[in-house]
Each structure stands twice: as structure tokens, then as C-alpha cells.
């Protein structure tokens, strides 16, 4: 049976915000009854009383649920499809983690509960610290920072404190031109100046440039390894020697730790300070942009300056147990009494809900599983790279000719392609390729980063994707390239099948409308 020749097309539903729905008088919340003597707010607060209540929406619960469930369906997400967003490590988020984080003993625990009555939480944090220390190859961990960039801020402030404590004032921080934007932004916020280091033809740090710029005014070198080009810097030990030689510290941006867990440790490479992204390597769900968590690990010489509070473990009844021979029970506590600490970076102890999830992940995988995760991540990235290279896209060209690897032959857990040849030969830009991928049901890779690669495309498949997914994705890229060879306009106008098409970002920035106008 075929459809009638002419069918009525339903009108597209208008996009309404929650403030444009509902009606006066509707409500979801039912306030508990007033069971104590009433207090007149006007009398008590006088002029500090609010006269006009905030114009919040007025809706019933079913309206609220329907509104947000419908909104959710206008989002692409990792549970629905492949998300090879480079530098973001979009690996599967096991649902167990949501279940354990929601246990009331974790989720309804007040952050100021007496440590004596929060022993489970403190032990969890202690264990997580221990695991992260082992993975980093550094002895001390602080879980407090709320995100990678927050960890970076902690790291640069720690570096400053370390130098100041030795009576030195150093002003400059070195960072390669491939660094994440957070590195230079953090350096500025920490009151220091960033100095760019050049990249050599292999994608690593230009050692001559480093030697020329490394002097006693340098506080720190910030480095990602493997770096944002997917290249593991083979000169890392020499880099560490040069940096330590002028008395500076070496900082590890852990965004790419997923390549080396159990395989190579930043501490063993010579790094003094490391930040982790629990939302990348350790499966804290990204939540559409947060929450994250950015613990740091440091060497002995940096440890005195760590933020407060620090978790401490005390053995009770002495190491040999009590008189009855019972095993000593360790007790955990929060230590605020740290004379050289840089202080606090935020309220309370950090994003504990993230700690629960990442700790559950580490418990699930164990030593072997973590190593296996990194091995598979690197295998998947290299496999996808190889598949892309071999695809015939017509005209005697392969996908690899049009999208060549920017540096090196192999890659670590991610790789950066240059869309330069594609742009010249097919007249489509990396942006067009990315937008066309949306029609194929994929989240595109990271685009236009790192900045020194022309028309960059940064692909990170992660270990939780199957060979079949990687094959399909490579096929989709090849199909788009073949299509563009025939008619570049298709990609240039893409996407077509998404809830909205290309949006006017210039207008949005020129005359910003960043809230709903209300009557």
C-alpha cells in the first residue's frame, strides 16, 4: 500500500520556553501547612521585603514534565550515538554509577556532617585519592577542584606558592602553542604571564625554543602528553630535565590521560603536578557541559601547599591492634591545619557525587581494566585512522589524501586530521563536513582545534565503541567526501534533518538575547 498522493503536512510546533507555557494560577508545588504562628514578612522585613514576586512560570507537573521531556528529545547524546569529540573522552557512562551516587548515604549526606559520622564518604575519598596517586605516579592527591580548568588554577597557584616559599618570584609560564585554551587563561588568572612554545615537525615541543625560553623567571611548563595533536612527546624526559634545571615545575594537563592509564605515568615522566578530568577518563557523565571534577596529584615538594581540607587517615589502637588483638580500625578526618596551604578553591570538599561515580568505575575496572581501557582507546583510534586512510572516495583519492593526519604516522587515543586538502580539492570546509555528519546521526569530532592545524578535525573514538561503529563512521566520512566531490553544495548547506539548521551565531552575539522577555 502506498500513501495517498497528497497528505496534509502537520504544522511545525512553535518553539516555546517554559515561561511562555502555563497559565496564572497553575501549580505543581504544594506548600506544607503552616504549623507554627504566622509571621508577617512586611512587619519583619520592612523595606527589605520583596513586593513583586519573581515572575516564575506557573504550570502543573504534567506540563513541566512534558516540556522538558520534549526538550530532551532535541538533544543528541552519548547514549544514542557515537560522539568522537576529540579531547573530551566521550566514553560510556555506566548506569551503576547513577544508582550508587543516588544512595541516600551519599546523596543526602551533609558536607558539614561530623567526620566521625561520615566515615564512609571519607574512606571513599581516601581510596579514590590512593588510586589516582597510583595512576599518576605521584604521592599526594587533592580532590577539591571542580573541573580541569579549576585543577589548572590550583596547579599554577601551587607552583607560585612553592616558588614564593623559597623566596623566589617567577613571572612566566611556558605552554606549547597546541595547549588547551584553559592553560593560558588560567595563567593570567593566577597573575602570571604565558609564553608560547613552538611545536616541532613531529608534533612535540621544539626543544631549541624551550631551551631558549627556559630561565629562572619561568615558574612552570604546562603540558598535555599525549598532546592535543594526539602525539606522545618522545622527548619528555629531556623536557623535564630542562624545566627542572631552571628550578621550574612541570605541570600535566590530564585531559588526555585516557591514552596512558597503567601504561605510562606522569610522575615517572617527571611531572610535579597533574590534574585529572574525572568527567573524561573516569566516566563522570558530562551532563551537557557539567558537572565535572578536576582532582590534582602532586609530588612531595608541592604537597605542603595543597588546598585545605586534606583527608588524613589515623590508625586507632596503634598499629598492632588493641589488647584483645582486634584489628585496628582506621579513622578518617579532615585536616585544616596546614600552614603553607594555598587555601580553599571552593566550598566544602569538592564534587563528591563525581567522586562516587569515578570510584565505582575504578572498582569495576581494577588495575587490569584501566590498562585495558587505555589500550583499547589507542587501538580504536589507530584503527579508525587506518580505515579513513584507505577509503576510496573517487578520483583516485582516498579519504586519507583529503584528510591527512596532521603529525606522525600512528596516534595515541585521538588523532588530528587536516581538512586543508579537502577544502582545496572539494571546496568544503571542516565545518561543512561536521555539519553533514549530523545528518548521518553522528556527533562530529572537535573542529578547528588545535589552532596550528589547518581546518583541524580532532577525533577521539574512546574504548567503549565497537569495531562496527568505527567502520560505519569511517564509511559516513567517505560518503560525505564522495558526495562533496559530486556537489559540494550539499555539505555546505547541511544539516537538513536536525531540529534546527545552521543558526545565526553572529546575530546572537551582536544583539544578545540571553533571557526570555516577560510581559
Amino acid at each position, binding site marked *: 500500500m502506498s500513501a495517498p498522493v497528497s497528505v496534509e503536512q502537520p504544522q511545525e510546533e512553535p518553539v516555546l520556553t517554559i515561561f511562555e507555557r502555563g497559565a496564572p494560577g497553575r501549580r505543581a508545588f504544594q506548600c506544607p501547612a503552616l504549623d507554627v*504562628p504566622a509571621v508577617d514578612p512586611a512587619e519583619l522585613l520592612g523595606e527589605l521585603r520583596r513586593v513583586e514576586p519573581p515572575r516564575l512560570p*506557573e504550570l502543573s507537573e504534567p506540563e513541566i514534565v512534558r516540556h522538558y521531556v520534549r526538550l530532551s528529545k532535541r538533544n543528541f547524546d552519548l547514549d544514542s550515538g557515537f560522539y568522537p569529540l576529540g579531547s573530551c573522552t566521550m566514553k560510556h557512562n555506566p548506569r551503576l554509577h547513577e544508582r550508587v551516587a543516588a544512595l541516600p548515604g*551519599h546523596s543526602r549526606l551533609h558536607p558539614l556532617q561530623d567526620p566521625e559520622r*561520615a566515615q564512609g564518604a571519607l574512606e571513599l575519598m581516601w581510596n579514590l585519592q590512593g588510586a589516582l596517586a597510583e595512576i599518576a605516579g605521584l604521592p599526594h592527591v587533592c580532590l577539591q577542584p571542580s573541573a580541569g580548568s579549576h585543577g589548572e*588554577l590550583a596547579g599554577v597557584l601551587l607552583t607560585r606558592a612553592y616558588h614564593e616559599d623559597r623566596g623566589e618570584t617567577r613571572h612566566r609560564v611556558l605552554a606549547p602553542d597546541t595547549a588547551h585554551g584553559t592553560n593560558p587563561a588560567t595563567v593570567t588568572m593566577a597573575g602570571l604571564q604565558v609564553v608560547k612554545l613552538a611545536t616541532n615537525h613531529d608534533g612535540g615541543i621544539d626543544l631549541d625554543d624551550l631551551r631558549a625560553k627556559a630561565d629562572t623567571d619561568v615558574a612552570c611548563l604546562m603540558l598535555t602528553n599525549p598532546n592535543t595533536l594526539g602525539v606522545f612527546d618522545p622527548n619528555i624526559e629531556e623536557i623535564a630535565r630542562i624545566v627542572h634545571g631552571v628550578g621550574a615545575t612541570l605541570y600535566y594537563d590530564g585531559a588526555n590521560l585516557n591514552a596512558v592509564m597503567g601504561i*605510562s605515568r606522569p610522575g615517572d615522566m617527571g611531572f610535579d603536578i597533574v590534574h585529572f578530568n574525572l568527567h573524561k577518563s573516569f566516566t563522570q557523565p558530562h551532563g*551537557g557541559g557539567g*558537572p565535572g571534577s578536576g582532582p590534582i596529584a602532586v609530588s612531595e615538594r608541592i604537597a605542603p601547599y595543597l588546598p585545605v581540607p586534606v583527608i588524613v587517615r589515623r590508625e586507632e589502637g596503634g598499629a598492632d591492634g588493641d589488647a584483645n588483638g582486634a584489628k585496628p580500625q582506621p579513622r578518617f578526618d579532615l585536616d585544616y591545619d596546614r600552614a603553607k596551604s594555598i587555601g580553599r578553591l571552593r566550598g566544602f570538599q569538592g564534587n563528591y557525587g563525581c567522586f562516587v561515580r569515578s570510584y565505582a568505575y575504578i572498582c569495576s575496572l581494577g588495575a587490569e581494566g584501566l590498562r585495558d581501557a587505555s589500550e583499547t582507546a589507542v587501538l580504536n583510534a589507530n584503527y579508525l585512522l587506518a580505515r579513513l586512510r584507505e577509503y576510496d572516495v573517487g578520483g583516485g583519492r582516498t579519504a586519507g589524501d583529503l584528510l591527512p593526519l596532521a603529525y606522525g604516522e600512528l596516534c595515541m587515543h585521538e588523532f588530528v586530521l587536516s581538512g586543508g586538502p579537502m577544502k582545496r580539492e572539494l571546496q568544503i570546509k571542516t565545518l561543512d563536513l561536521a555539519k553533514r555528519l549530523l545528518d548521518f546521526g553522528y556527533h562530529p569530532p572537535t573542529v578547528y582545534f588545535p589552532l596550528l592545524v589547518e581546518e583541524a578535525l580532532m577525533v577521539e573514538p574512546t574504548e567503549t565503541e565497537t569495531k562496527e561503529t568505527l567502520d560505519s563512521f569511517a564509511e559516513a566520512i567517505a560518503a560525505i567526501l564522495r558526495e562533496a566531490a559530486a556537489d559540494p553544495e550539499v555539505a555546505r548547506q547541511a544539516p537538513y534533518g536536525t531540529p534546527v539548521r545552521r543558526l545565526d551565531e553572529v546575530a546572537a552575539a551582536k544583539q544578545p538575547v540571553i533571557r526570555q522577555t516577560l510581559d
Partner: protein
Amino acid sequence: MLAAIGVGSVQELFDRQIPESVRLRRALDLPAGLPEQEVYAHLRELAARNVSAEDELCFIGAGMYDHYVPALIDMLMERSEFLTPYTPYQPEISQGGLQVMFEYQTAISELTGLPVANASVYDGPSAVAAAAYLAKLHNGRARIVASAGLHPHTLQTLRTYAHGYGAEVIEVPLRDGCTDLDAWTDAVDAQTSAAIFAQPNFYGAVEDARVLSAAAKSQADPVVIAQVDPIVLGVLAAPGECGVDVAVGEGQPLGNRLDYGGPSFGFFAAREEYLRRMPGRIAGETRDVDGRRGFVLTLQTREQHIRREKATSNICTSQALNALGGVVYLAWLGRRGIVELGELLLARTHYARETLVGLEGVEQLHRGPVIREFALRLTGLDGEAPLDVAAIKRRCAERGVNPGADLHALTGREADRGGLLVALTERRDRADIDRLVEVLGDAVAAERGAQSVAHTPAGRSGQVVSV
């Protein structure tokens, strides 16, 4: 797969890229992995060794509060479509998340009475530190005047950040529970970049926000920043109406769990003139090529991935999922609900304070109006010497009551010895408050007794007792 790559083994991939000297040639010293049900059992066992607000009558607040989180928030925050995407870099497939940000910004703008809000930052204390950085970028001055009524974690965080970006923090003391107006006015001068207070303040007192803002502005033109508890903004004048330039705060009371301190979100709202210096993500409305209404991340030229060392902040995380909880909570409360809830908190808080100060050895730390939290001073038989709050808390805990936060443990201020900070939420009804009165009363009486035994007559008269 290896054949396609052209290597003989996975190890070869690493051997060819990582120098042997930095390879870890042993297994990580971590326990072996566990099956899912065993991980669950382990995490459950750890949870069971915490005493949560589920297990005791919780009157502790001091920055995070045991409010009821409606079930629809759990459901929405656990939806894959909100839980598992990254930052909405591809707006065509991220309209849901972007619109949530836009709605959230609208709700925060309405609550605070300020025209622009970002899509959230890490938490309350770091939001204050970020706001002070905005002030420094705005006027180039480097002295921050901060009320001692700010949460101690806020003051500590502010000092950490300010040391980094090169600003000095001057703390203005309190008088009778509120910011000392004379000291505040004296502290602000032409070098002051920001003047910061909390509303209500850490001790629960309602500050005269209008007077503080006006006093600061009359001295020079600092950026006036208020850290605000959002849950009371149905009954308390909006910061924007009180002369505040930037209002920030901890969003946890709005539909977020306690989670032992995080994750939650920090909200950040400001007057229009600060828009282009705001930190963090901002969603904006626009149109697509076919004229459809849509949303994008906007004003990105402020941000680190574009501006690098010239960015207005290094932050790239918004607490998007937690902010979703926040806006859904505000929609659930609704326009009338936020007023009703505020009035309920107000009434119960006053009932609790009045009843508690009727107890022997319990007095209020200040007389000013309070809304949802208040400070008490617990004193010994002489009516002067402070009681040991930790000991009182232990006595209450034995009877299933957490009576509040130990003020001195948090602030370290001498004047806060014997101080107890008691918080109310809609989950604590009159019977719960009466139970607190009974249990705290007994604990204070017992502790007074214990104190009087410890202070023997000989000791009190100052004689040296040799044993």
C-alpha cells in the same frame, strides 16, 4: 583491526610511541576489578557508614540545605539526553540543552532582579571569587572589601583567588550580627574594586542590602557584589532592587542534592554593563537559516578557547545538569510557590529561634531578622563561658538530632565560641522543631553540668591545686 593498522600487536602501538624509560613495566597497584553487583555492594556499604539527613533530624545548613527534591527532577536529570552529552558545541543537535540554559538564565535573572545571567559556574564560593575577578577586570583596581558576614568558605576561596590575580582582601567586621556600616563605609575608597556582602549573611541575619550598596557607592564606584541565598528570594527584596551590581550564590537549595558538598551549581547574574566580562557559558536566542527560533552558545569571544590568555575567565564548565535541576525546581515551585515557601521558612525559623532561646543556656547571637537560619550562643551556668559545641552535638547525635553547625569550627573567630548555626527547610515541621528544643535543651543542661564538675570550686577561685 591490527592488520588494518599494520602493526603486530597492541603493544607495538605503544612501543613505537612511548619511550621505554617512561613505560610502567608492572601492573598498577590497585585491586582487581569487580562485577557490577559487588561494586554496588561495596558502595552501599560505604554509604551505610555515613549518617545522612535520611538517618537523623538534620538542622545543619551553613551553605547547603536539606530541602526536598521533587521526584520529577531525578527523572529529568537521569534522562540520557540531559545526562550524557558534552557542552553544546553543535547547536543543531543540542537545542534541548541550550534552551534549558536560556530558561535557567531567565529564571536566575528574575530571581535576582538583574538583567543578565550566565549558564552557571562551579559553586557559590567560587562564584564570589569569579565576580571579584570581573570587578578587577572592569575597573582595574585591586582592593576587595569583603564583609565578615560572608560564608567562611567564601572568604577563604576569595583570598586564594585574589592572591592569584593580585588583589588584596579587606575584611569588614560585624556589629550585632550584621556588617558594621561605619567600618564598611570607611573601608571602601577609590582603590576598592569590589564591595562584597552576603544576604542573608552567614549568621542568618538579613543585611540592609540597600544601605550597604548605597554606602559603598557613595565612597567611590566599586562593583557591589552580593552572595545571595536563592531560596528566600520570594520574600526578600531582589538584589537588583537593592543597588547590587552582581548577584551570585550557591544554587544547591534549588532542587539539588546535598551530595556531601557537590556537585551543585553557582549562579551568576549582573547588570547589563558587565555582560561582556562575565565568566562562563551563556546561551542566546537566534534564528536558523529557515527562520526557526533556536539557541546557541553566545558571546564566546569572552572565553578561553577563543581568547586564551586574554579570556575573562579560565572556566569552561557550566554546571549544566545541576542548573537543569535548578530551573525545573523553580518551575515546579512557581511564582506563588517561591513566596509561600519563603513565608513558611520565615515562620518556622522564627518559631524555632524563639522557642530555643527560651531554654536555659541558649541565647541568640544577634537580634536582627532572620529568614531560614539563625545563630545561637550556648553558655555555661555563669551565662558567660561558651559551651563545647562539639560535645553538645555528640549528645544530640546520640538521640538522632543534628542540631546545626559549629560556628567556631567554621570561622575560627573567638566570638563564635559556643556558637551554633541552626537551619530550617520545609522538611522540618513543628514537631521536628519541638524535638530539637527538647534534645538540645537536655544536651545543654547536661553539658552545663559536666562543665561545672570540670570547673571545681578550687579551680574557679584560682587556687593552685597540687595533687
